[in-house]
């Protein structure tokens, strides 16, 4: 355990696309690579499926960070979903800033089905970044509704 920040262990929600990044994360498992347990993954079919609402809900429900990972540009299983995600990132980061949440807490990464090591490095690096930022200023309890 890292006690640099009072033993703070960030909670990070990861939205991984089914075709590239989720497969890359699976490969890290079958290769028995080790990484920090702070990212908890929700599988989506495409990074473009990640509604900005999901990101804000995650912060509302107590996430300290959100990771979105998809196929590399040009490799999208659905041709161009990841480009849509890329464009949404700018808006989402800006909105987070306005809400008083450091935009660094939201991260978009490209991880192919073969890039298990890249996935591991991203998880570890992001965990460290969020640990340094500390707990999210926007923790609240909210109900599970649409």
């Amino acid at each position, binding site marked *: 355990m890292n006690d640099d920040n009072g033993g703070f262990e960030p*909670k990070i*929600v990861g939205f991984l696309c*089914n*075709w*590239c990044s*989720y*497969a890359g*994360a*699976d490969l*890290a*498992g*079958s290769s*028995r*690579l*080790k*990484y920090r*347990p702070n990212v*908890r*993954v*929700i*599988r*989506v*079919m*495409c990074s*473009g*499926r*990640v*509604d*900005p*609402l*999901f990101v804000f*809900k*995650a912060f509302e*429900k*107590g*996430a300290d960070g959100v990771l979105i990972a998809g196929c590399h540009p*040009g*490799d*999208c*299983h*659905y*041709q*161009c*979903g990841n480009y*849509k995600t890329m464009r*949404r990132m700018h808006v989402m980061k800006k909105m987070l800033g306005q809400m008083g949440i450091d935009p660094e807490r939201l991260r978009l990464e490209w991880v*192919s*089905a*073969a*890039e298990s090591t890249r996935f*591991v490095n991203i998880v570890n690096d992001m965990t460290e970044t969020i640990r340094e930022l500390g707990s999210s200023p926007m923790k609240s309890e*909210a*109900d*599970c*509704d*649409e």
Partner: protein
Amino acid sequence: MRVGVYVCHCGINIAKTVDVERVVKEISKMPNVVICRDYHYMCSDPGQELIKKDINRYGLNSIVIAACSPRMHFKTFQEALKSAKLNPYMLEMANIREQCSWVHDDVEEATKKAIALVKSAVAKAAQLEPLVENDSPVVPAALVIGGGIAGIQSALDIANAGFKVYLVEREPSIGGHMAQFDKTFPTLDCAACILTPKMVDVSRHRKIELLAYSEVDDVTGFIGNFHVKVRRKPRYVDEERCVACGDCATECRLFNRIDSEFDEGLGKRAAIYVPFPQAVPLKYTIDPERCLFLTRGKCGDSPKCVDVCDANAIEFDQEGRTVEFDVGTIVVATGYDSFDATKKPELMYDKLPNVINGLQYERFFAPNGPTGGELVMPDGTVPKKVVFVSCVGSRDKKVGNPYCSRICCMYSTKQAHLTKERVPDADVTVFYCDVRAFGKGYEEFYERVQEEGVKYRRGLVSEIYRDDDGKVHVRAEDTLLGEPIDLEADLVVLATGIVPKATTRSLAQKLHISHSPDGFLLEAHPKLRPVDTVTDGIFLAGCAQGPKDIPDTVAQAGAAAAHAIDILAKGKITIEPYNAVVNPDLCGGCRICEMLCPFDAHHYNEAKGVMEINDTLCKGCGVCGAGCPAGAITLNLFRNKQIICQIGAILDE
């Protein structure tokens, strides 16, 4: 909702790092959870039986399996649900193996994460809705990309099963690299004798439409219904009229003046040519980059090929054209490139004439090669001292190729044998890193060649140089004796490895399939699905997927064909109902989703003022849902509400 949760031990794969009993205890407390159990192997027969019995006993209507990745066993458990008469989409998996127990060492941390992941799955399971699968017809035809031995084998197998095959080859002839080889290891079969009959079978097969000298431009659609655009490059020769007499080539003003690609630059050809005498289709092609008439608009007083062609087959005004067709399935068999040895400057490949690569040496032995199968150097001498250098471009991180090319040890051994056969008193040395004689009869062949007097020395070659007398030397360190060696050589053969074809990446993007870090195309599972890709209906064969020898290539090509035939023979495929749905009460008709959809699945209903989605065209990416300002679109099995509940549960501790 009545949810049943099953936590798998996976032997010790999960149970070693995740406290399964604690997970069960925590999850049992959740609302909606009627029963929560753990079991050693959920995917086993008794494991699946357990679920089926519980569905009936407890009236479960939604199931969570906490086990391996859903990419591994989602379909397995869907079948279990089906057999218990439960809708197969009332299932959610929590990936506590690949993304939890295998990647963490600390039991406390792993258990806490596992609980969060299962909670998230239960939250989603409580929101699941039954979905109906639809069938879609399959176009009874296949596309095979690449006409080497892999593509030829796949095309013949599929065609012999009675289905139409479009075989696309970029070069003027099919045959691929195998057509360049003289003999094949370890049996020393003549490559041409076993390959050319298959090439002829392709050209004669009623079910195969051969599109040589063509390239796949675009592929759209999905399993069962791919739409393909193929660009047919102009040969400048009418294929119908050309009788392949060859008069045009011998008369061509550039006859014997252009390096032959087929002979790896050792032989010469004309500007109008067939790559090799057994080419299929046996039709001449004009090289548009070299032909005087095509590059300068003038060839003497008149092009000689036109003058001598009795069949009037030369057509300088021919233009490329695009052909379009539909297929149900695709086999990718695009092969490999030979490693470019100039990337290892210390080996002097492009500097010294008697340093050649393995594929070039192959052409020395081939009866249809530049020397007619004789082992003579361009200066007329017979090489007496021949040195092979292994692992050129393989197992070499410096050039970015950490992998073993698998074939070089054996083809060097074969070529060493052929050298001794042609020149019995030749002094033949092979510098190797490790000899990998992995196949049937390979070790025995390697032993036989050693007995024939070929010397194997374990050592990495550090440099190749020419001394003051003009003699070529190979300098290496013998790593068994621990001493430096300096060998004089009349001929040095670099056993160049296999690299992905330069065009692999762009083809992968056209087909929406992946490639591994080494650049070869990625199979869906390295052990259990070695010929599938992650895109349903697209299969891999041969070296496009990774280095392999001819027997493995032919085996994989047959397997790819069998998978393709499986789809074609069924005649219909089940479309998974992962499609987007519009709530007409919320839709404002802004049509933003229409702009976001890459598949043109959205259309605007003018009368109702709302968007509608075509289920067949929709591929279920969900991009439209994420962009809908009214929140009117959601995605089956990944509904907004389902994901939001997952978010809440995954963060709940």
